[in-house]
């Protein structure tokens, strides 16, 4: 049954090709259902492979299937081949599972869009690339998926290309990611140079039977981390992710929350045998970048007014947790959090999409309020998502976050402290979002006035929601619940967000199911916790206290309005610590000036030299042509002078 692994990416590829060939010849819902069916087929294949793998013994759960040689040149050779092991199949499970739900959701969400078919074509291509990324049995095939998802992300962010800001956001995403890709490529060169192969299992075997210098492995890890920083939006390459919200909301849920952005984390976990050979300062650096990004992004999320921007910064922050886990050597915890995050963040994004859909494209939190009764399913599921991400037991987010924090303490208590502060902020900003959206007085009735906060900041780049065409002025908003294609995925994801924690409970060795399951891929390289169970209880309790504090402050600020919200909603936080603006200013200023200077150099110096040479030849020629004046006298004079000159030369030569 594991042999069927090739079916997993084949389904979305087939869907993509079919949609390309059909073009505009099919009417609206058909393309959506076709794409969704392809995804569902892929999900079923994953299930079959998964069951097949469960039936195998632990040591037989790692299989390579080679389809054909891809690039064989000289000593270099890579295949199109799949590595089916618990890690890749786990990834496939939530990619295709959540993917199918989001495809289904999109049928409702994209209803009425003139480019409905194009949307699903891209979505299937994305799913195919993402599955290639996780199933690839070598780094180059992973890179193929890696770039493929990047390209799809570009195409989908700039999907509504008529708005220049969407187009800019798409371009920014691709280029920022390319900076990370530079690191990925250099890492592959280093690996090939030192190991002679890019195939994961070969690399791991070589690592085991040879002495590889620590500097080499450290550099490889650092370069791969540069790649991961791009895809998984870590500081300072996170810049593209908040802008990526310009894409349709299902895209934000699928690509920019649940799947693509986790591929950096996946990559680092996939190469865990190299990670453990790298020096500790490099993994320490990874942990610190992760936790730093988590705190940084959480602080920004506190003051965002766009419902999707809050979730975007929240995603950056949660990815920071996963990177922290990787840096601490807690690979299972990272995957665990990746899975629970895929559930609750997809849920939150789809919920936000449902709200935006019901509000005719409005994205400003300040113009929501009291939507709970008008959108009961959306509100109910969103609240579950809130409790899950905030880390309230027994929801899934609590378990995965708790495990990461325990490993952070194990590595350094400082990391733990920063992580707990982030948890507090997370609980706070999510409470704020839920209250502003679903509770309190409805504010969307105050037409024209963009809430009470002075600057209408992010409200400008709304333009979201498939049928926003007839949005018109906000005055006529009649909030309504979304169709079943949209609410069904919400309910499914809400259930998963509640029970997701069951796959890895910390109580005893037998409840750590995910850890055992992943062993064939983590090769016992996980860090071991050297903490007593009483320490773990105290840590969990303290983390819980911070979560409760965060929710409490949030409630008293936004629901009971006992605390002035201006204390938290600082302009500098709304402007993301001005980091993005500074980078943009540099690119637009000195950066583009430097480019222009090079172009000017080309035009004036290099081309100038060529034209200058032409001019000199012309001038010289125009002087010389005077000698050719057609007068015999002049020519005779020339001959005479020449003859005398020759004579003198001849005489001097012979006398000496």
């Amino acid at each position: 049954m594991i042999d069927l692994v090739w079916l997993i990416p084949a389904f979305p590829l087939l869907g993509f090709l079919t949609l390309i060939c059909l073009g505009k010849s099919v009417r609206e819902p058909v393309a959506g259902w076709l794409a969704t069916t392809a995804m569902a087929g892929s999900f079923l294949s994953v299930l079959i492979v998964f069951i097949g793998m469960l039936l195998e013994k632990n040591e037989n759960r790692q299989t390579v299937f080679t389809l054909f040689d891809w690039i064989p040149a000289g000593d270099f050779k890579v295949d199109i081949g799949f590595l089916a092991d618990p890690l890749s199949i786990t990834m496939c499970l939530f990619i295709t599972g959540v993917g199918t739900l989001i495809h289904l959701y999109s049928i409702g969400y994209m209803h009425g869009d003139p480019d409905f078919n194009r949307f699903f074509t891209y979505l299937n291509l994305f799913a195919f690339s993402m599955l290639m990324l996780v199933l690839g049995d070598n780094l180059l095939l992973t890179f193929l998926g890696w770039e493929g998802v990047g390209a799809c992300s570009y195409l989908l962010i700039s999907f509504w290309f008529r708005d220049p800001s969407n187009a800019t956001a798409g371009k920014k995403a691709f280029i920022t990611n390319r900076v990370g890709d530079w690191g990925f490529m250099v890492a592959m060169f280093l690996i090939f140079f030192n190991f002679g192969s890019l195939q994961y299992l070969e690399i791991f075997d070589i690592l085991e039977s040879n002495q590889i210098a620590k500097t080499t492995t450290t550099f490889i890890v650092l370069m791969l981390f540069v790649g991961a920083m791009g895809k998984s939006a870590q500081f300072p390459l996170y810049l593209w992710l908040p802008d990526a919200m310009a894409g349709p909301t299902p895209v934000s849920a699928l690509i920019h929350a649940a799947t693509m952005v986790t591929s950096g984390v996946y990559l680092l976990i996939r190469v865990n045998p190299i990670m453990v050979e790298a020096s500790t300062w490099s993994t320490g650096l990874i942990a610190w970048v992760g936790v730093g990004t988590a705190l940084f992004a959480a602080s920004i999320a506190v003051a965002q007014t766009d419902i999707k921007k809050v979730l975007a910064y929240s995603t950056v922050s949660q990815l920071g947790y996963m990177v922290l886990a990787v840096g601490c050597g807690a690979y299972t915890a990272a995957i665990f959090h990746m899975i629970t995050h895929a559930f609750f963040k997809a849920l939150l994004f789809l919920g936000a999409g449902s709200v935006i859909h019901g509000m005719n494209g409005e994205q400003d939190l300040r113009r929501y309020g009291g939507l709970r009764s008008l959108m009961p399913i959306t509100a109910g599921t969103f609240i579950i998502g809130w409790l899950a991400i905030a880390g309230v037991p027994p929801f899934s987010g609590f378990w995965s976050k708790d495990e990461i924090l325990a490993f952070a303490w194990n590595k350094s208590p400082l990391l733990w402290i920063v992580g707990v502060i982030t948890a507090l902020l997370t609980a706070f900003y999510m409470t704020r979002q839920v209250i502003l959206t679903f509770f309190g007085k409805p504010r969307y009735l105050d037409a024209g006035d963009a809430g009470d906060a002075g600057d209408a900041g992010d409200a400008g780049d709304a333009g979201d929601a498939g049928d926003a065409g007839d949005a018109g002025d906000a005055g006529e908003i009649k909030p309504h619940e979304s169709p079943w294609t949209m609410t069904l995925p919400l309910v499914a994801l809400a259930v998963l967000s509640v029970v997701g924690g069951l796959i890895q409970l910390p109580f005893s060795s037998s409840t750590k199911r995910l850890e055992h399951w992943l062993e064939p891929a983590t090769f016992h390289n996980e860090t071991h916790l050297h903490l007593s169970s009483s320490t773990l209880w105290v840590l969990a309790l303290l983390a819980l206290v911070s979560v409760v504090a965060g929710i409490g402050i949030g409630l008293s600020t936004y629901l009971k309005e006992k605390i002035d919200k201006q204390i938290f909603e600082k302009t500098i936080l709304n402007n993301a610590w001005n980091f993005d603006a500074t980078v943009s200013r540099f690119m637009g200023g000195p950066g583009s000036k430097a480019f222009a200077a090079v172009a000017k150099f080309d035009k004036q110096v290099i081309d100038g030299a060529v034209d200058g040479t032409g001019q000199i030849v012309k001038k010289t020629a125009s002087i010389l042509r005077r000698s050719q004046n057609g007068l015999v006298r002049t020519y005779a004079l020339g001959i005479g002078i020449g003859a005398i000159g020759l004579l003198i030369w001849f005489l001097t030569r012979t006398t000496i």
Partner: protein
Amino acid sequence: MNLIIAASSSATFPVLPSLLIVPTAGALVVAFLPRARKDLTKLVAVIFSTTTCALSLWLLSDFEYENHSDMFQFVSRQSWISDFGISWSFGVDGISLFLIVLTGILFPIAFLAVDPEHNDRSYFAWMLLLEAGVMGVFCSLDLILFFLCFEVVLVPMYFLISRWGHGNRSYAATKFFLFTMAGSALMLVGIITVAFLHADNVGGSVTFDLVEIAESQSIAQGTARWLFLTFALAFAVKIPIFPLHTWLPDAHTEAPTAGSVILAGVLLKLGTYGLIRFGLYLFPEASHFFAPVFLTLGVVGIIYGAVVAAMQKDLKRLVAYSSIAHLGFIVLGTFALNTEAIVGSVLQMVNHGISTGALFLLVGMIYERRHTRQIDELGGLQHSAPLMAGFFTVVMLSSIGLPGLNGFVGEFLILLGTFTAHRWWAVVATLGVVLAALYLLWAYQRVFHGPAEKENAEITDLKTRETLVLLPLLALIVFLGVYPKPVINRMENSVKTLVVHIEKHVSGFEEPVNRHSLGEIKIDTQQLEEGH
């Protein structure tokens, strides 16, 4: 000598000479068509060019790459000016094979894609003569024959630019002609000197036979280095290598669409092909000696071309500068002097021909509709021309080097091989990958995205003919990205032979390979099998 006999027995039909003869004959037929039958001109041109294409494909199918010990295949040789040892000597190996096929494919496409605005007969005649010249360069195994073809190419191109070009065409045509002419003048001196020095050193009569001269390596080291430079200068102008590149943007911008397609697709490769065949093969020691210079110029070209491309306001000029960056990769790979990198370079010559050819066709189609190439004046084209936007996107992604499309394979092999040999050059060159995304996506955004106004909102999408012309290129872009193996297999042996040739003639040089191939790293195969 034995190699010539062995190969000629396998092919009785002189397929290589016919690659020159057919287009030349076509040029003559077109030129002498009755004035009244103007309608036949294009048809005749297409027939002759597709025949040439068919011949090149026949060559491809009959080319043997397994168990073939001879360096060149399909060798055919006729004495020409026997007093000076000049002969009609042709042969093909894995390095020239795909450039011949590329030429064969691109010409009919260029014919079908665009019609000249006036003087059809002379236009098609010049184009066919151009094809003959290009084929000649890729097939010649005689230095004089090679030089003749190399120079013959200039004349049709000059007329194509100056008669059917745009605005500033006579400036561009003259610049193109003078630049390349000046570059290759010294090469003639070099060729004659090489032949006579070889005859002196080996004894016997003068010969211009490439294989004989290259295999004997009889010329003294110092002299050979100087002679290498005379060749390298001609090629450097043709490629073009920074800082000899300024003829290219002008020629590209002013040339008619078909001219740009051929110029970028095939003509630039005369230079990079020359560097391999008449650089590395003829002067291995000098190539090795000067490699750092060319590696550096290659990297400079990659970064410089990309930066200048980003600032261009004219779409065609932008693509022209992007060519400089791409050709920088090819130069880099060539002088890394190992199998992966050189295979990557040869592959990239083909890839660049396909992608940039398609890109120029698309820019030409935009120009036909909007009569402008100024990026500022375009915008929102995707609105009314989604199919064109789709084609442009795929071609652009191929040019950016997206894995799964053709551009990536060559670029990756070049960088991988270069890293093995000279890691820091590769690390810097890889930055070119970031910059390529920058200038192309930015251009795409300004041309296709955003709101469409006035004329931009009303342009027509691709016509059936245009789609059909682009489809084969698109198919190649995908095929070479997904399954480049058959192409690489046919190139690889020739490249390996070349690298061995360099190793043999450069004392102390060994092909730079990875640590595993060096034997420093060992795989425990038994354990590996258990692991599976």
